[in-house]
């Protein structure tokens, strides 16, 4: 352990493009409240990193926003949209909350599990798909539904699910 307070920096883990994007969010907060941008910053570096956050990346965000690493871990573990383990190229977030459940989400889940050969919370061996159970995504009118990447897919049926998945690389 070193005797001084000079710690090795992890900032280089954040790309210049990501930094620029983070700065856009930092600018929205008063100068002494930079940490307000933590959620945006985590999202940006998660995207940069193929959809998940490593401890080092979270440390880098902490360093950039002048926070303690544990404060960033608190945020990253609180919200389910942050992944702390590698995920597949396509993250299927399937809602199993009340409306979707009443409209048959259980069947969709079963179908997905069978088709992909994985359980909820797992990733296919080829790294293409991750299946994740989530709470209400606010699209109850079109239940059952799931989200892949930035897109919502609603009124799901087994056939529709197959169609959607077939179209993905």
């Amino acid at each position: 352990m070193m005797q001084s307070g000079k710690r090795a920096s992890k900032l280089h883990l954040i790309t210049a493009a990501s930094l620029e994007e983070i700065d856009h969010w930092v600018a929205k907060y008063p100068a002494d409240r930079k940490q307000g941008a933590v959620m945006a910053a985590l999202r940006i570096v998660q995207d940069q990193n193929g959809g998940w956050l490593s401890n080092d990346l979270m440390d880098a965000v902490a360093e950039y926003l002048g926070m303690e690493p544990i404060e960033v871990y608190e945020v990253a573990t609180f919200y389910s949209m942050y992944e702390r383990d590698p995920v597949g190229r396509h993250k299927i977030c399937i809602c199993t909350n009340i409306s979707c459940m009443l409209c048959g989400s259980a069947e969709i889940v079963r179908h997905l599990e069978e088709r992909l050969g994985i359980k909820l919370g797992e990733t296919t061996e080829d790294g293409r798909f991750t299946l994740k159970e989530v709470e209400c995504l606010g699209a109850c009118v079109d239940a059952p539904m799931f989200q892949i990447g930035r897109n919502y897919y609603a009124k799901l049926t087994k056939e529709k699910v197959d169609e959607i998945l077939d179209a993905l690389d």
Partner: protein
Amino acid sequence: MVNIEINGIPIQARDGAMVIEAADEAGIVIPRFCYHKKLSIAANCRMCLVDVEKAPKPLPACATPVTDGMVVRTRSEKALDAQKGVMEFLLINHPLDCPICDQGGECELQDLAMGFGKDASRYTEARRVVPEKNLGPLIATDMTRCIHCTRCVRFGREIAGIMELGATGRGEHTEIGTYVERTVNSEMSGNVIDLCPVGALTSRPYRYTGRPWENRQSVSIAPHDCVGSNIYIETRRGRLMRVLPQENEAINETWISDRDRFSYTAVQGEARLARPMIKQGEDWKEVDWHTALEYAVEGIRRVREQAGSEQIGALVSPSSTLEELYLAQKLLRALGSDNIDHRLRQTDFRDQDLAPVAPLLGSTLAELEARDAVLLIGSFTRKDQPLAAHRLRKAAVRGAAIMSVSSLAYDFNFDLAAEIVAAPAGMVNELAGIASALLELSGGEAPEGLASLLAPLAISEAHRDIAARLREAEQGSVLLGVQALGQAELSELRALAGVIARESGASLGYLPDGANAVGAWLAGAVPHRRPGGDETGGRDVDNMINDGLRACLLLGVEPEFDTAQPARALATVEAADFVVVMNPFVSETMKTYADVLLPVATWAETAGTYVNVEGAWQRFTAAMEPLGEARPAWKVLRVLGNLFELDGFEQTSTDEVHDEAREAIGEVTPATDSAWRLPAARTVAGEGLQRIAFLPIYGVDGLVRRAAALQATADAPPAAMYLNGALAAELGLSDGESAVARQDNNAVTLPVIIDEGVPDGCVLIPQAIKGVEMLASATGRVSVERA
């Protein structure tokens, strides 16, 4: 003030106070878990729900401000219903493992469950289990017991200043921990053990060793730094069980440092010297006290007759009690020698005649917190005096400018307003720059010779910045710390600090090492002053070490760790004809130089007085009998006086010694100003890099050095040399490689650690740890080469 009524009792409460504060002041008990008067309000446990008239639902007393005419009921049906409901929820996931929980008997949850809990749970679903966290050697965890009050989290963020624990996850999955496995490294971390209302965080060294109701509590003073934190020592059947803080708002508030909390483990350690011993030829023999003392007196007498009194000297620990120090100097002086010194880590004595009567802070600790600007000179306050650093931190958080000039980019637990990192010798230039900048601002007259300390450097922007901030401050302090006091440039630093303080209107003060440096100065444990400060003339520690002694008394001192010149000091005691060691501990090294080993009590086993850095005299009594045949050092010194047939050694209690010392010291008025004198030039001898001899927090005295739990923390550094990357490259060294450090004719091989916080031209080698005791001096030059 507003008028409110709680349970029918009319109460006057401060404007803006919370109901719980008003109730506490009036002695009305409201149950609580998350509320703590020293922490921010979280209001997340809901145990403090009370019934407030006109409010439709019960309100949390800790987060409800008082308003005029408010009527509160803490025990109405509505209130009790709410409190019982909260308790039922809290107990859902709390394990019923009180019989094996260390918190049992002093658990807030256990106590409140007695009052508000049911005897059976209605909950039949699955309970949560939380895996244990490894937080290091001081804090044990049983996280399933955690009730998520977040006191420990808020402590880290708000008090310790480094947030290490957090609440990760969400809802039922919330866990308190560090998330990535790491130890908790705050030097005040042990306080979370007291804060945790349940048994989730408990003391690791104390684990499974006792029950609180079996312990006897004595009031005492912490023995490791000049703050003098108030503590309780708990014993059971003559064994020291643990140390806890005692609240004293003026000194340590409700906290203590880990050093003060966990050093006790050494009191019963294996290294204790249990019986007096004398050296017979090459062998050590256990003897009775009388034989040992006669032998000691005999040996010293012989030297005195052959070589004269000036060949007798005493090195005494600055953490000895006032009574011990007073009697030690009295004994020495009665034998005709002024050679006594407690300034073991000091190396520059050129200006000791100008030194103040004692190294006082120049303000109270509480006032430190209200300072607008503080300039720390060679002070790593955070580890040197953690509770003083806590005051500085509070000032910094309030917006005060805390600034530092030192030889290491130190990891303070608050933001510095300005920082200058320079080689030890270079610090003189820096202070001269700040002093000159101040003189420019004030238009004052530069003291004679000041310019010669500044040349060839000019006044920099950093100097002007620090000068301006100090001058603007209504209340400022300039403080010389442990590093500065050990430096070869102390005279220059002190003179310049005096000018800076005078020109900026700040007070000048000290943060010395040891628990009783102030007491030691007052009691006359210095060669040039008697108790109370009358001048006399003896040999200082540097002179004793370098010019040698024929007879030497070591009180609580291990020369290889406790002095600034370990190898030289060791050579001196080895060469001496007769060495008397008074120490609670024994080591193999001691046996190589000592002639008599006298087991003395630790601070826990004797009564005495520590004078803290504010000048507060704090007395304490013995918490327990000394181990084995050890005796309090004051008694040993007194009997030595008797055996030498000296007058004035008839005291029968510490009270008598205390009163006598107090009278001899008299009323001292500390000078508020320091005189300017350009110190005589002194060049740093030798070749090579300047050594920075960092004093690690757990190396300061024999007790902490033997406290196993503390030695297992990250704050106990391995023997190594730290230098910056550029210098390492220049020397052809890389991180982790071994290199040889050489001083005089002594060399040690140490691993290299690259640390960018070390200034150019310097190598940081910690002192007071194993593996560096063969280096000649904590100051001066070291040559470094590849191994």
